[in-house]
């Protein structure tokens, strides 16, 4: 009784060892078994033969593409065992089959492929049971199919003349590998299940718990050779199909590495070799004729075999199945990324250097592919977050750092991008593009002029080494100075920066005479310092280089308006509009010019047309587009990138341009306040990026201004109200309200509005000027003088402020100073454009 019981336990123990590949224990178990006489010796022979062969292979693994070994003493021994078992024929049929399979494998190892095939012909592999058979036998069958495939590939065809037979043979080989792969996956799933049960059953026993399973040559071949052949034959459709089959099988610990590789390879193929139109999703049948396959070889697209049992695949309800090649590539890459990220070696001790490099390479390949996939779809926000995850193992790795910086930049996360770019500069100090990218961000919406200056100087200091980027460096520093000049509150500082900017632009222009930007900014800088004729010369030059540059055309129009050639200016604006019909900044200038040239009615028509254009442009923009910046913070602030592309002046201050430091602060306050205010009233449309709404508000304000010019207070008030419903706390809106009040004769109300506007934007020159005038009317001269002097400090070229200041001084009896002011005003007025030159955006 006890003997039988222990006998069956012995059998299970043997089975377990065979399943888990613990060949070293077999000999001992066989000894116990023969001692108990529960079975004949033949089974022992089979087991010993198998164990010795496996042990040999474990110690001398076969490498892919290596040549056969030939007879070895150990293998002789194996053969002796197997021949003994086979010759006597006392074994149960399934053990006989096993013995033949081991024998065939031995033949393969020794290089006798014909004999191996001969052995397989005795066993009908297809009839071996997959259902209910012990786990180790699954592995045997899988290996047998793989070995058979290998042998078939090696043994030449009997009659190579028949090409049709050849195709059949190819098909047979592929089928062998595919079956082998399927059964191997099944085996690995089963063995893992058995192991996890085993751990629990034997949990009190301290034995070797984590037995790392390895695939070995035959299973590895079985799993991979089929798709390798498909791709070699140019049959992408079936190769992709095979990849998908392997990936859909539920993963096991042993297949993890294989899955990483295959997922990445499939993603590569999806990104490199397929397109939207040639794609079919994993649950669909592949197309019959695909451009992906070479026409010469025509093999069936579907597999032509069935197995009684297949590996488990991921299943359940609501499984996500990709519908597009980028989707599938992304899914695969996200899976690979999570694994690559997890396996990335973090330790930096020298012993692990190799490991670290290997893991870094495989991870960075995954990140590159992710970049390609997400870049195609414009998902820079998500990309930047993915790359951020790579940072923990990207120490001193320039490529990953730079890619992160670029993705942050593309996602509009400027401040962080600059920080990362700094690190990139440290890693690659000789590359001039990096500091230039940083300057671009700094002089953009960040308005970090000090930092920008530093970065630009790095490029300039590179000298000749910066090559073509040297001119760009001077351009960059010129822009920084130009913006600083606008910000500066002291006249001397302003002039100094203007001079520096001018010389930088000149340098840039001489270094790169065909660059229209250099010439254009030179012209703009001259215009800002009111050297109108010189500026005209350069802007014409810029237009010769780049005939349809919108900013050059705009500057030309403004310069003409400064010379009081309003009709010519309007012509230029109309010409520009024929090329840029939806450019609002040009349209605003047009409204101003039309009021002067053709009367306010025309200007009002233009405003109406602007509203229509606005509607056609932004009604279309779908709401989900605004969600591109999926981050909450990013959604809250205006979509900067679009803002740059649209070249829109900051709504907060159309008069002094988008670039004044205080106006940026004001616009932020304004945004925040307006959001709070309008969240109380539900009517205001608040979805989507902010700037279309800014544009709309600005259109209404322009219309209001035209109405004020016509003396129509009610209409002006209505227009202002429209703008106020969008941005109730905007100083521009408040200013306009003040103007309407003034028109109605409510001086006190107007004063109140102006004061509110100034509390939001303390440097809004127009408001200061109007407030000064009101105070003048109220005979509060010294306060009026103070405010107007402040206004002149902020913008020394505002001639109407000088004029008002003159009036106040005159009223105070300071005639000498008043005369000076009037003269200045007169002089400035002669060169004053219809709108300040600084409304033209300055960006790299």
């Amino acid at each position: 009784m006890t003997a039988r019981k222990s006998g069956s336990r012995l059998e299970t123990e043997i089975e377990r060892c065979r399943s888990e590949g613990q060949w070293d224990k077999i000999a001992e178990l066989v000894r116990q078994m023969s001692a108990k006489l529960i079975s004949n010796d033949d089974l022992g022979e089979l087991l010993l033969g198998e164990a010795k062969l496996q042990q040999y292979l474990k110690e001398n693994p076969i490498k892919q593409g290596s040549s056969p070994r030939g007879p070895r003493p150990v293998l002789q021994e194996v053969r002796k065992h197997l021949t003994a078992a086979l010759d006597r024929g006392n074994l149960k049929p399934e053990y006989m089959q096993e013995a033949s399979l081991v024998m065939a494998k031995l033949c393969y190892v020794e290089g006798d492929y014909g004999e191996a095939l001969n052995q397989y012909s005795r066993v009908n592999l297809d009839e071996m049971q997959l259902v209910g058979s012990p786990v180790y036998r699954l592995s045997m069958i899988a290996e047998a199919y793989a070995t058979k495939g290998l042998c078939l590939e090696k043994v030449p065809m009997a009659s190579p003349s028949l090409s049709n037979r050849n195709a059949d043979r190819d098909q047979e080989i592929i089928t062998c590998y595919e079956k082998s792969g399927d059964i191997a996956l099944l085996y690995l799933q089963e063995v893992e299940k058995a192991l996890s049960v085993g751990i629990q059953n034997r949990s009190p026993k301290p034995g070797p718990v984590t037995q790392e399973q390895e695939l070995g040559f035959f299973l590895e071949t079985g799993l991979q050779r089929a798709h390798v052949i498909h791709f070699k034959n140019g049959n992408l459709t079936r190769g992709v199909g095979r990849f998908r089959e392997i990936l859909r099988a539920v993963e096991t610990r042993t297949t993890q590495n294989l899955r990483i590789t295959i997922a990445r390879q499939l993603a590569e193929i999806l990104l490199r070799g397929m397109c939207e139109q040639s794609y079919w999703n994993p649950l669909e049948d592949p197309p019959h004729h695909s451009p992906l396959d070479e026409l010469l070889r025509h093999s069936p697209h579907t597999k032509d075999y069935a197995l009684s049992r297949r590996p488990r695949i991921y299943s359940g309800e609501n499984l996500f199945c990709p519908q597009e090649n980028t989707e599938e590539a992304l899914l695969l890459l996200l899976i690979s990324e999570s694994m690559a990220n997890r396996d990335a070696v973090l330790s930096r001790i020298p012993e692990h250097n190799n490991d670290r490099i290997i893991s870094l390479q495989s991870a960075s390949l995954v990140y590159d592919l992710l970049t390609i996939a997400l870049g195609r779809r414009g998902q820079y926000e998500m990309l930047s977050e993915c790359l951020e995850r790579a940072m923990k193992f990207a120490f001193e790795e320039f490529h990953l750092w730079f890619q992160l910086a670029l993705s942050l930049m593309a996602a509009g996360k400027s401040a962080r991008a600059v920080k990362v770019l700094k690190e990139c500069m440290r890693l690659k100090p000789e590359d001039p593009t990096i500091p230039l990218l940083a300057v671009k961000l700094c002089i953009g919406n960040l308005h970090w002029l000090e930092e920008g200056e530093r970065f630009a100087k790095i490029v300039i200091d590179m000298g000749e080494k910066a090559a073509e980027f040297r001119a760009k460096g001077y351009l960059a520093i010129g822009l920084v100075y130009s913006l600083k000049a606008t910000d500066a509150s002291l006249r001397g500082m302003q002039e100094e920066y203007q001079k520096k900017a001018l010389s930088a632009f000149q340098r840039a222009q001489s270094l790169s005479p065909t660059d229209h930007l250099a010439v254009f900014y030179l012209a703009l800088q001259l215009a800002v310092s009111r050297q109108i004729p010189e500026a005209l010369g350069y802007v014409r030059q810029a237009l010769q280089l780049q005939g349809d540059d919108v900013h050059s055309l705009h500057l030309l129009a403004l310069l003409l308006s400064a010379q009081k050639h309003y009709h010519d200016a309007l012509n230029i604006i109309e010409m520009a509009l024929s090329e840029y019909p939806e450019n609002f900044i040009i349209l605003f200038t047009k409204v101003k010019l039309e009021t002067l040239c053709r009367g306010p009615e025309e200007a009002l028509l233009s405003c109406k047309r602007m509203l229509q254009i606005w509607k056609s442009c932004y009604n279309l923009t779908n709401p989900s587009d605004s969600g591109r910046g999926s981050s909450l913070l990013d959604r809250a602030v205006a979509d900067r990138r679009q803002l740059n592309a649209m070249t829109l002046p900051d709504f907060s201050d159309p008069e002094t341009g988008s670039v004044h430091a205080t106006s940026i602060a004001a616009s932020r306050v304004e945004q925040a306040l307006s959001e709070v205010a309008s969240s109380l009233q539900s009517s205001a449309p608040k979805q989507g990026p902010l700037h279309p709404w800014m544009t709309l508000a600005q259109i209404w304000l322009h219309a209001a201004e035209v109405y004020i010019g016509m003396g129509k207070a009610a209409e002006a008030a209505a227009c202002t109200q429209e703008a106020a419903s969008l941005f109730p706390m905007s100083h521009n809106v408040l200013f306009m309200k003040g103007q309407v009040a003034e028109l109605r004769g409510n001086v006190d109300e107007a004063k109140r509005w102006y004061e509110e506007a100034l509390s939001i934007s303390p440097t809004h020159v127009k408001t200061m000027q109007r407030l000064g005038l009101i105070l003048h009317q109220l005979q509060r001269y010294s306060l009026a003088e103070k405010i107007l002097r402040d206004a002149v400090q902020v913008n020394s070229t505002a001639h109407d402020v000088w004029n008002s200041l003159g009036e106040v001084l005159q009223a105070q009896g300071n005639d000498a100073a008043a005369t000076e002011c009037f003269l200045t005003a007169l002089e400035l007025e002669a060169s004053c454009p219809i709108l300040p030159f600084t409304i033209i955006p300055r960006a790299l």
Partner: protein
Amino acid sequence: MSAMDHGVVEEWLSEFKTLPETAVSSYAASLKDKGSLVPALYKVIRENYSDLLEPVCHQLFEFYRSGEPRLQRFTLQFLPELVWSYLSVTAARDPHCSGCIEALLLGIYNLEIVDKDGQSKVLSFTIPSLSKPSIYHEPSSIGSLALTEGALANHGLSRVVYSGPHLQRETFTAQNRFEVLTFLLLCYNAALSYVSISSLQSLCQLSSRVCICGYPRQQVRRYKGISSRLMVTSEFLVQLITGIHFALCNGELELGSRALDDVLYRAQLELFPEALLVGNAIKSSLHGASLKANKEGARSIQVEITPTAPRISRNAVTSLSIRGHRWKRHDAVDLGSPDELTEISEVDEGICTQASAAPSSPPTIVISSSGGKLSGKGLRRLTGRSSRDKDKDKEAASGSDQLTRKQAAVRAMSENLELLSLKRLTLTASQSVPKSGSLSLSRTASAVFSRSFEQVSNVLAVASPSSNHVAEADHGGVAYLEHLSPAHQHRQRSPTISVHVTSDL
């Protein structure tokens, strides 16, 4: 242009006109047999002054309008050449004679921006999320994800628009030029597998020329066409790069890498982050790959058998291996009760691996970290697992797996929730630990929160039909805010379980 080419083109022009409706499909199939036609048409497009240009453009448009995919692809293969022809004429400010090419390009654009019913087409795609089960993975086996703002926002599958809707365009202006051309390239890229090698070559040429004309590199490349600079946009370059990438991997290694270099050169000069990003990635991803220039024009995508054994030695420190590691802190001496902390980390690890049923190491790590003794919770977890595995065995034996699997899933889910509440308990218990411990506690707490968040949303995903999750990004933002507040999550948890159970039983 030789008389023979002339003849071929004229024949092509005339035969389609007389073609009956029914024969269009077979005609489309026969087009690829006309070997000399495509080169002859390229010549017509390149020679701007050919009198055949107008009828050819007209017929190409007719092909496109026919709706027959093969005819559309026939037209599409000339797109790079047409774009270059148009751009070079515009740059040369030579207003006459590009009219018909402009009309053809705009015609294709206007056809492509609307769907069959004449509605504006919006091209969108789903961003996969690892927290949702897919045909290739199970969320539980992935482990924890980083709790970034974006990860939370994209927690569900979100559908994003990547192109469209677009306005109908009657004429090209400087403002809409690249918008239209970018969209046309997008259409071209969607059909890349179908275009011929000559078309890919033409695309590479287009890319190089657009990017270098007027720049010093033009001399290096010895291109003597127009010499004025062409304005480009970053999006346009990204589309060019996509096409170049395909060309690079499908037989045009030399032309393709030159084109990629030229585009990157220009992107650097223009400081375009998007184009630099994608271009750098392609360059670096092809760096190691062995691309063989296949002169027979064969697709040169190849794979090899790779060893599956882990290539990384087991004792190297990886993100995975230090996940369970508790960092020693200098001021950790007076930590209130270290036991509670280990318990948290223990349950924490259990959660993320227990559903994978893998004999993975995390549990063993946990056991050793808690000093060899199994706590009550640990035991509970193990029994939970074994019962589930028995289920799996049964399923394997019976063969009818669906039902049992579902039950197992339900059980796994309720286990998760059970553990969740356990965690919450330990968490609240350990929150009473005073001062210095609180810093590390908050760290643990956030980790716990991230996991529990995953689990809860997994439950949500199973319980609700997927359509709810494919919400527009707008709503997604709101929904995720809801998830974000722990209080809300707490409230929502039990109702979702019940929904789930009823739907399954």
